[in-house]
């Protein structure tokens, strides 16, 4: 009996709808103007994104279509309701990859909105590239050693950005957001937001940054050489000779000259600020 169950289990696991072949693609794109920064947009419905900066002029894309997960009860029900007979027919595993790559000058767009596939996307970009990344479901977004501006949002997973310079606008919903600055670019402000996840930021000691933090229920931990003070808002109504002072609401600290803003918002997540 145990042998029969084991065999049945193996048959289920090995059945074509569940065991799709992994498919890999590799593609290299040369920039129209290699001396200027590339702008890479990547948007996936399901999967993971890894972007690495390197000392090169091309954008190198590799993608792996991962095996499908077990078919859910809902999917089984939908399949059994088909009206067309399939007896004698062989079911073909759909390994077609829905991944569009467009190039327009130095702008490269990578897009896959297919819900039924999990795509692990890896992109190697020149160091000074600008990124715009979005992941709706799946795993993590990871960025390493990219020195251009970064816009990144992960609805259902964590974000890790290391060796970056900013500016960065990043948003997580329920997972952690970890950012390690190699240098802090003061050309534009940066913003890090997480609803329930923690935010962990590492800054070089020489950064000229004015940090402003708002957290409703989270804690703040700091190893920076700067004192945090509550930002008070004073509203004055001159016509009615009234004034209203709101104490707190935000905590702020200035590192060195405090040239540029770094805005950090969480609801429940804790905030960690570290020195490099």
């Amino acid at each position, binding site marked *: 009996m145990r042998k029969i169950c084991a065999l049945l289990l193996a048959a289920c696991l090995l059945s074509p709808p569940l065991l799709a072949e992994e498919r890999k693609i590799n593609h290299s794109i040369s920039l129209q103007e290699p001396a200027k920064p590339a702008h890479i947009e990547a948007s996936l419905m399901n999967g993971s994104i890894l972007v690495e900066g390197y000392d090169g002029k091309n954008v190198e894309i590799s993608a792996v279509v991962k095996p499908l997960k077990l078919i859910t009860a809902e999917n089984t029900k939908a399949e059994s309701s088909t009206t067309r007979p399939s007896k004698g027919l062989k079911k073909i595993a759909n390994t077609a990859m829905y991944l569009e790559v467009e190039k327009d000058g130095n702008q490269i767009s990578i897009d896959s909105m297919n819900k039924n596939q999990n795509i692990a996307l890896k992109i190697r970009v020149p160091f000074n590239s*600008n990124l715009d990344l979005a992941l709706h479901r799946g795993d993590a977004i990871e960025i390493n050693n990219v020195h251009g*501006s970064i*816009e990144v949002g992960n609805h259902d997973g964590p974000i890790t950005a290391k060796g970056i310079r900013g*500016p*960065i*606008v*990043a*948003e997580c919903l329920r997972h952690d957001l970890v950012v390690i600055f190699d240098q802090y670019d003061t050309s*534009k*402000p*940066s*913003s890090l*937001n997480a*609803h*329930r996840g923690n935010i962990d930021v590492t800054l070089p000691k020489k950064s000229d940054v004015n940090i402003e933090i*708002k957290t*409703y229920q989270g804690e703040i931990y700091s190893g920076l050489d700067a004192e945090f003070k509550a930002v008070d*808002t004073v*509203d*004055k*109504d001159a016509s009615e000779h009234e004034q*209203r002072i*709101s104490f707190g*609401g935000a905590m702020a600290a200035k590192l060195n000259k405090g040239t540029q*803003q770094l*805005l950090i*918002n*969480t*609801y*429940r997540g804790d905030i960690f600020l570290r020195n490099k």
Partner: protein
Amino acid sequence: MMNFEEIITQKIQYLNGETSQDLDDKMQAIVEANPELQAEIEFIETIWQSQSLADDHQPSPALDARFYQMLSLAQSSQSPPTNDMIPETKKHWLDTVSRLFSLKPLAQFALLVLVFFTGWNLNTPSQPLVQVTSQKLEEQIATLNAMVAMTMLRDQSATERLAGVTYSAANAQNDTGLNDLLLELLINDNSSAVRLAIVDALAKRNNLHDIQSKLMFSIKKQNNPLVQMSLIRLAIQKQILIDENTLSALLNDQSIDTDVKDYIRENRRQLTGRHSV
């Protein structure tokens, strides 16, 4: 004994006008007694008369001396003669007048008056003209700042739009067009970071009663719980009251995050203005 040279010199001096006395009788007798001398005297007279040297105007010795002084100075220094070398001529009063009222001195005088006038007026700010000018200048600067902010806010990049929000908060808080754009982005911008920054920028304004209804409308339109809670906190901070029906609708909306609903419940009294009995 008078020699021939003395006679010739006397003749030349007479012809030059240096003396009024021609050859006397004694000299004349010597000339008539010597054919060679007589020929020479006649030759000199002929030459003098043919060239009409006696009729030409010759420069005076004083003028001559000044000419040669100028020439030697010019040769030694290669510089034009100065006014004191040039013989003075009588100045006409019209020349003086035209020199004083020529374009360059007039322009210099006008500039001096303008600088004096401007400095005096800047030091007396109570002057209405200066106040009006200063006010117009401030308005133009504010308009320019608003235009810069609007350009940044319309950029495709979220980092640029975020920079535009912080720029507008610092430089152009009172521009109506800019505030309308910020409210539009509060509802439609796809970056929650930009929308959060807009809420922070609005929080710095003193009075939000003119846009109160738009702010409350935007709460329902938000898809990010952090932005929704920031708007609710803004309503509390600015004493913008929300009616019970609106609050109930938010609490019953399935798409609203539970954390947001908890936040509304915790601050319900402040939001509705109802105080405990």
